[in-house]
């Protein structure tokens, strides 16, 4: 059983890095979305185990994307985390208050990213 992840980021380069970083991990399956609205469609069609969201995106930003996902039928409990450079303690607290299970700080080390994702997931289920 691998962990099914949707990663949402408007930056194509970062999507590419994340793809590279996670593609060799046998226990993860990642699909990429380039915007909040794309993520909404993709997640509605096939709900993942974990949604990783960039915060600052044009159009619909990460927090509003999360709110809209949660408004979809059957997805009010979707597990989500933010991947962002906004990691001042007050910002992290805000994200957690929105119901995110955690925050992965940008810039992240791609070699550690699989472990960070696993760690987030495990801690959520601990």
């Amino acid at each position, binding site marked *: 059983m691998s962990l099914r992840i949707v990663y949402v980021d408007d930056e194509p380069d970062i999507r590419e890095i*994340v793809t*590279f*970083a996670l593609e060799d991990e046998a226990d993860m399956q990642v699909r990429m979305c380039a915007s909040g609205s794309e993520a909404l469609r993709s997640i509605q069609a096939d709900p993942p185990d974990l949604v990783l969201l960039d915060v600052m995106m044009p159009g619909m930003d990460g927090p509003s994307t999360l709110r809209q996902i949660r408004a979809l039928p059957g997805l009010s409990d979707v597990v989500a985390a933010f991947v962002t450079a906004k990691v001042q303690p007050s910002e992290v607290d805000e994200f957690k208050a929105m119901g995110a299970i955690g925050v992965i700080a940008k810039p992240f*080390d*791609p070699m550690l990213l699989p472990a960070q994702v696993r760690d987030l997931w495990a801690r959520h289920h601990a």
Partner: protein
Amino acid sequence: MQLAQSLADSLQPWLSQYVPDANAVASFARWLRLLKRTLALPMVMLSVRGVEGVRTLAADGVDEATAHRLAPLVTRVLETGQPLMLHELPLPALHFYAGLPIFLAGQPVAVLSLLDFQPRSLSAAEHAVWQDVADGMLQTIQQQRAAVQSLAQEARVRAVLNTVIDGIITIDAQGCIQACNPMAEAIFGYAAAEMLGGNISMLMPEPYRSEHDHYLQRYLATGQARVIGVGREMSGLRKDGTVFPMELAVNHLLIDGQDMFTGVVRDITERKQHERMKEEFISTVSHELRTPLTSIRGALGLVLGKFSGSLPDKAKQLLETASRNCERLCILINDILDLEKLTAGHLALELKVVDLVALTRQAIVANEGYALQHAVRLRLLAGPTQVPVRVDEHRILQVFANLLSNAVKYSPRGGEVQIGIQVQQEQVRVVVQDFGRGIPEHFRSRIFQRFSQADSSDTREKGGTGLGLSIVKTIVELHEGRIDYRSQTQQGTTFFFDLPLWLPQTISAPDALDAALPRVLICEDNADVARVLSEMLAQDGVASDRAATAADAFAMLQRAPYQALLLDLGLPDVDGLTLIQQLRNHPPTREMSVIVVSGRAQNVAVASWHAEVLPIVDWVQKPIDRERLKQAVTQALKLHIRARILHVEDDADVVEVTRAMLEDQHEYVYARSVAEAREKLQTGTFDLLLLDMLLPDGVGACLLGSLDTHLPVVMFSNREIGIEVRAQVAAALVKANTSRDKLLATIRQVLQQEGN
């Protein structure tokens, strides 16, 4: 005399151009009429020294031509300062002239002249009247001058008040507005007339409004000041109902025995706006910088991490250079943001009582790798064994990291950096000394400023952002400490910072240092009972802290790990049983072992209630029996900390030593290789993994990725591990630096965190 001289000097030019006002004209006329009638004279006049010759200020019966002809006589009186009396005059019709000089501050400034058509003399009584009238006229002149001066003074003061950029409001002891300047009108949007007589609270929003009257009364009664004599930021209320941020400084004055308060108000809306914009700007910039940096760091990391083996050496070297510089850029951005947060006061310190000696050792270990790269040795000089300070550990480690890396950078290869700790009365000084080239004296004034390095070529040669010392200074000052240095060219540099010593204030304080002891929280409102409990526990080797209320206890339990809670039921804020329920509902403290220590007996109803809400370990009834307490606490601690630990280690001696350290508190299992560890992990369950780095069949870190449960890992290796591995484990220890107590404390702490 000198004062008199200067008075006369200042009066003379004024008098020469003096024009009597209406009051003075009337007064002079009265005086002259009085003089004329009393002495039965046809003509009298008062003259002063003018810009050109003498001037007539007032006259009765004297025409202008006559006055003009008499000028030489008046001048003579002024010049000699002597009264003059003549019967032969340059005017044929007149046969009597008498001139009396009027003195001010010893100088003749005016002349009161008497004239008659016949020769005559003056009796002593007549002379006295003459003199009195002269004095009276001088007084009139002085009064007018004083009035003019005070008007000028007031106009000047008013001009200042009207043009300052601060609003100024004066109120009386009842808070009634007595005066305000135009800026106050502009700030609050009221006309002066609308404010005068109103209460100052009209300019304040809630909650200041309700507090205010009470506040003035309390200040007058007790002298307790919150804004009086000090400036502070608060909110103001404009006429249109908008609330704005303002800075208020209030001074207390006594005017004619009345208490008055002058408030100086500055509207800081704009400043606040700028601060907000700056914050937003920094947040945005940091995001904009970090986005491309994420891609660059990610791409480099992936290439170096995944394809390093297949890269030509030269290419690998270049990529490593790029990667190193990318890390440096990340650090720079973090430093800038850190500094911004620090200086803007947005950084809350997480203060804890810690042992500065232990913290220093930790800092030395953490920076030893860097020192080794530069072939420099870090040496802790002999000093005190334990120094309690209340600091934010993370931030003080940051201070050490900066000072140590600077000292290392500027040390010659093969050199030594010495670290000393000196206790001085109520503070402790930490000294970091290098024997490098020293800091040029001309650099002293700039050394703690941002982006400053002694030599602009330093940035390239020595690395670093030029922000380090600025951050260090800010952190030290946030801890109410100070930092400075001494340096001698070619001899070396000594940086030192002072921190206040932490002095025990609560009963449990001395134990706060002893991290190796199990620690419990005593929630008890009676300080004496708490002290007794704490002493009993201390005798059994259990450290304790005290909370006086349920709210405090709840907060402390969220912040720090405790092995058990000793709880009094009758607390000032909420009942102890309610606290238990709160703890039960809150995941981090759900499993907290609670020992009730109460005067209440454990009745059946309560017993059945607590059986279902929480494992209450025990119920100790007051008065406390020492043996009974010991038994309860021992039981609670046992429940808490016995863990099953897998130690992966190939060195049989290390296994034996570690087993000896852990065995009596934990269940100890070991594996000699990565393969054996995998096997043991598959067949058994463990609470914690103690992991060596170098094993016969691979590095210990390769186990990290394959742990499928969330098993906490403590690295236990021969040397400091890399930052990337460090990020994946709960703790990292270096064998040579780890005592039994340290190992046990770390394990306890990690288990506690995981338990949460």
